[in-house]
């Protein structure tokens, strides 16, 4: 029996792997668009509390994929450790990069992936964001020698939530799902509260 992931991007399978890449991208782009992620207002609503779609879609997606990984891994279909090895932790560059990316997100109205969807839907602000991401990533390459001492700050290797919390992977999925449901209930409440406040404000003379 083949254990996934197979070596889809090397040797004789490379061409097939690249074609599969396009197919995966089409599915990814279509789902993002239909979830509303090709529209800046829908995305940034997250940061003003008026539309929590980003939180709902993202947490549901993570919990779904995580559950699938654990099930497939315990069925022996997938090597979870091999997949996790692709995502090592460098804590401080990730915290700093995350904060800067979040700030850029609310400025641009998109994250890098959703800006591709917006640009492809004809949104010029999406295309401007795509261009900005190109420029910023090139600027990073120029600054990289100066940043080198910082890039390995908080290097923890393949450090998973299971290891950090001392819990089996299945328990981590249950925990993430539980936190997600709590966050969804809170998000629905905040949306209702803010939209009723907005309705009252706009109804006032």
């Amino acid at each position, binding site marked *: 029996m083949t254990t996934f992931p197979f070596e889809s991007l090397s040797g004789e399978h490379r061409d097939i792997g690249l074609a599969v890449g396009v197919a995966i991208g089409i599915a990814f782009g279509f789902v993002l668009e239909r979830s509303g992620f090709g529209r800046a207002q829908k995305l940034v609503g997250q940061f003003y509390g008026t539309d929590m779609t980003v939180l709902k879609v993202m947490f549901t997606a993570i919990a779904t994929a995580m559950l699938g990984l654990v099930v497939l891994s315990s069925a022996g279909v997938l090597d979870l450790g091999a997949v996790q090895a692709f995502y090592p932790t460098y804590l401080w560059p990730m915290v700093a990069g995350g904060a800067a990316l979040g700030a850029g997100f609310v400025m641009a109205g998109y994250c890098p*992936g959703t800006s591709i969807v917006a640009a492809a839907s004809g949104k010029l602000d999406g295309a401007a964001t795509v261009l900005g991401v190109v420029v910023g990533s090139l600027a990073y390459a120029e600054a990289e020698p100066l940043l080198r001492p910082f890039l390995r700050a908080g290097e923890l290797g393949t450090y998973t939530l299971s290891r950090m919390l001392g819990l089996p992977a299945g328990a981590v999925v249950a925990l993430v799902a539980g936190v997600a449901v709590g966050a969804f209930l809170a998000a629905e409440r905040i949306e209702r509260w803010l939209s009723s406040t907005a309705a009252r404000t706009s109804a006032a003379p």
Partner: protein
Amino acid sequence: MRRDPDRFWNPYLGGVALGLVLLATLVVMGKGLGASSANFRAGVWAVRAIAPEHVASTPALSWVARDRHPLDDWIVLEVLGVAIGGALGAITSGRFGREVLRGPTMGAGGRLVLAVGGGALMGFAARLARGCTSGQALSGGAVMSVGAWAFMLSVFAGGYAMAWFVRRQWR
């Protein structure tokens, strides 16, 4: 079927669909989704056309151009697919059309400047963090990487911290 541009998928069902796309990617490709490194590769390709010796002498650029063409990577094809899928979704839902999305009091020029600026900040940040919301938060988050979760929480923190300063472009 009537097209309604203001109608979106239920976010929880959209999330399940996105999760299944991500799961299929992890199973078949052995790694997750991504986006920003395709922009980077396109940038290296452009710089190499103008100043090939600069690419060769800058290690953070040359590594994507050494053995193969900078665009010869699965992530570039995946992002090409994202553009096709995004366009299909927009066309079939009546959301396709040339416009600058912004609040009623914001000028189009200012909005585009903020979009380029925000994009540049994200491009820099995504290289620093080894991935963006797709490659790090979503994919790394699903494989339980602690760094990816720290990244994701920082994205939300950075977004909330900046939101007040740019609120005028949305209203």
